[in-house]
């Protein structure tokens, strides 16, 4: 078809375009998050990642749900999809299944991913589509003004549980590592920019569903949850391994380190479960896991060919 060959030509022409992208080429309008919000760090790290990997703005799609962090796509100069609460992953699945050529990033908050969208989260891990899924976890509902989220620490007071959260929080790492076909699970923190950037980069370069939980402070509603941790690097334990996250210049500050081979799922689960330290790093990676879009990659046909096949199909029903 003429239109088809046209678009292929356009795509081919763009392949060897000589554009060089700088940070500013990925920056949308000034973000309207509170000052001190962890979302700012993630936005900057993402723009830096795009610059470093020279991603094309037009073939990059940021998909989000609803919540403070879900405003994210609006502040990127790429394609963006600001959808509905909890449902970023199905939208992203549709995008990637249809257009494996696009780079897809999913930005979710803890209410979005771990609560209302939990079902989609579990299944997206299993589908293992090649995309980056960021959980911006500040342990609270911010946009709707301080309601308990599934990751709110036990006893932490909110407007819906003013006498303190009743139950132990859900641990997104444990959950993710428990899902069959998980292929990339990492944790990082917005206040460690070098680690955050290195983690995003590893996630982007992973072929499969890269799940990154980003520990965040909400300066308005949960400034205290990680307040002490930010001041005291010893409360953090870095996962170290040649196959893990390689962030420059952290060794002197974060002396508390543990060797962990990201191929070792059992050890990863043990580390995720153990609450004695806050661990940053790559818990698990396995690129050999089947990717859904690959299993569903089907040959493309012209309209003429489709008509021929359909006519053959009609033979089954012919009277």
């Amino acid at each position, binding site marked *: 078809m003429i239109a088809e060959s046209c678009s292929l030509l356009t795509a081919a022409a763009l392949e060897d375009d000589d554009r060089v992208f700088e940070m500013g080429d990925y920056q949308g309008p000034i973000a309207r998050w509170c000052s001190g919000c962890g979302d700012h760090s993630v936005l900057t790290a993402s723009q830096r990642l795009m610059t470093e990997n020279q991603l094309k703005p037009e073939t990059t799609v940021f998909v989000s749900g609803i919540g403070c962090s879900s405003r994210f796509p609006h502040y990127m100069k790429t394609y963006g999809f600001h*959808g509905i609460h909890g449902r970023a992953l199905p939208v992203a699945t549709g995008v990637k299944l*249809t257009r494996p050529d696009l780079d897809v990033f999913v930005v979710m908050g803890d209410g979005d991913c771990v609560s209302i969208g939990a079902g989609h989260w579990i299944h997206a891990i299993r589908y293992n589509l090649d995309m980056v899924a960021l959980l911006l976890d500040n342990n609270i509902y911010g946009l709707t003004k301080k309601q308990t989220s599934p990751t709110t620490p036990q006893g932490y007071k909110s407007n819906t549980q003013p006498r303190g959260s009743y139950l132990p929080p859900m641990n997104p790492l444990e959950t993710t590592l428990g899902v069959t076909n998980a292929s990339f699970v990492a944790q990082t923190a917005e206040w460690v920019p070098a680690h955050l950037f290195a983690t995003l980069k590893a996630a982007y370069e992973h072929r499969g569903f890269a799940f990154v939980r980003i520990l965040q402070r909400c300066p308005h509603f949960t400034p205290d949850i990680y307040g002490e941790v930010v001041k005291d690097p010893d409360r953090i334990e870095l996962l170290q391994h040649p196959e893990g996250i390689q962030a420059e210049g952290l060794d002197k500050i974060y002396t508390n380190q543990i060797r962990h081979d990201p191929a070792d799922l059992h050890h990863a689960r043990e580390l995720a479960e153990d609450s004695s330290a806050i661990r940053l790093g790559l818990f698990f990676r396995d690129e050999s896991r089947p990717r859904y879009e690959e299993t569903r990659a089907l040959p493309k046909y012209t309209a003429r060919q489709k008509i021929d096949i359909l006519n053959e199909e009609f033979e089954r029903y012919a*009277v």
Partner: protein
Amino acid sequence: MAMKLPTLDAEASTGKDVHVHRVTDHSVEVVSDSGEGAQKCGQIFGSVSAKMGNGVWTVEIIPAEVEPPPRNPAGASGIRIRLGDREVTNWGDETNLVVAFNEQALLGRHELNALAHDATILVESMWATHPNPDVRAEWDAAMEVLSEKDYRIIQVPMEEQCLTVVDNPRKGKNMFALGMLCWIFDRDLEKAKDQIAYTFRKKKQEITDRNVELLQLGYAWAEANLDFRYDIPTMKDDVPKVVMNGNDAIALGAVAAGLELAAMYPITPATSVSHMLGEVFDNYGGVLHQAEDEIAAAGVAIGSSYAGKCAFTITSGPGLALKTEFLGLATMTEIPLVLVDVQRGGPSTGLPTKVEQSDLLAAIFGQPGDAPHVVLAPATIEECFTIMATARRIAESLRTVVMVLSDANLATGVAPFARPQLSEASYPAPPDQRPIPEGLRPYDWDPKTGLSRRFIPGQPGGEHTVTGLAHDERSKVAYDAASVQRSHDMRSRKIAAFQNTLLPPEINGDPEGGELLLVGWGSTKGAIEEAVERGRREGLSVSSTHLTFLSPLPPGLKEIFGRFKKVMTVEINYSDKPGDPFINEQNRRRGQLSWLLRASTLVDVDCWTRVLGEPLRPAKILQAIRENMPNGGAA
């Protein structure tokens, strides 16, 4: 006990004096316990009859459970096949000939008033002499009940006969029954054999051979023992035809429409669309995505459409409810989406396998916030095929949600229709990847039409974020009064512009007008038109019109209604009947289409609706016509 002797009379068993009845319209049922293959028998019989040139409509009788307890009237499973000497557009009224594998399934059909008072019944004889006295007692009790009517009951030793060929007659009676039907209706045995071979093509050859043997056995038994046959004239036309059910037609229609991704979650009675797609979609480079839930299915389809290829999702009432928020999002972001709702009885889980047309208002108005979109309903199995291309084109050109309301009647009804002519023009172009000209904005609404050009990821210069929040032309979040009003206007205007291109519906009967006009939508068309035709033959001044577009409604309705003394919708959904306790003109809850028509035309549109868990019968509609004729109905 006064009951008709359910035995073969001597005359019948000689097979010598066969009476051939000439009929133009005949309905046959095969009923059994679940899993005994009655449906397969009926499907093959229907296909063979269609191939011979009869009009055919088959509809499955499906219990809600996969395998309900055996020998239970409520668990009757089977199929009805209506044959005609002309095109058959609906399942008809009552069944004239029944093949029953046990008397309890038969009793179930009797209790539903499915059988004509003088129906001929061929029933498995083994239960009458069963070693278990309880079974024999059940048989006797059933025969007592059945003797209320003038049925002619003939006992047939199906089990005994089948055991001469197979060890497990549960797996063979259906083909024996097919053999009997083939003799009774003088069907071409070669065509039946071909159809058996086709049906079992994925199984071992010996399965086909065994089934052909059973077919011949049934044929020979009928020839030797039965004293009646039916001669039903066939039509000869050269139009090549295909025969399938409405769900298969939707699936193949979607392929022909160039839809490349279907996202769904299993739900009766919609699921068989995806069975068909699961089988054939890969062949065309299409993707059938079985999502983790109904909501995700909508989300995946929307993501796919956003990425440049119009996708669709398939569901039924409960699933439509779950998808609601996403439908609002697609409307707000102006992302094309086709949604197929194969309606079933409701509310809630309702009647999963049975028909209702109760989702109309939910489909049109069910999304919180003002969410204008398009709602269509196919009226025939052929339209199930063609409507998918229409739906895709509307969805893409209007950047809108298009809902297609089919129902369980079309989903399971099987009828032949003219083989579709396919054209390359019906396929969409691949996603536009050309650069976006500078200055163009993602919602550059044309104030005259509300339409705007869609940007697709991959197009350089078109980068923007779509959002479910209120937004302006640049897709920027905008809560100011002017932007909010304007975007509402534009989303509504494109629907109005589209409505302006529609034609008034055609009148079946007398376009000049008359006493009574019936208005229908969806799968009831065949039954309504048949009733109108019979009424007109009786001299009644009745006509009908049928709406494909439910939202927006086509133009000219008020003017058309003005030509008739009385206008009444005929629907398979609930309405209070005049005279019901507490009910008066003001508080009466009405049929869903009649609400819509009253609101949009200010004409006093009455309604006649039934929710019986079955398609409407032409005879019942005819009765309603007679009862609702103004001035007694003289033409």
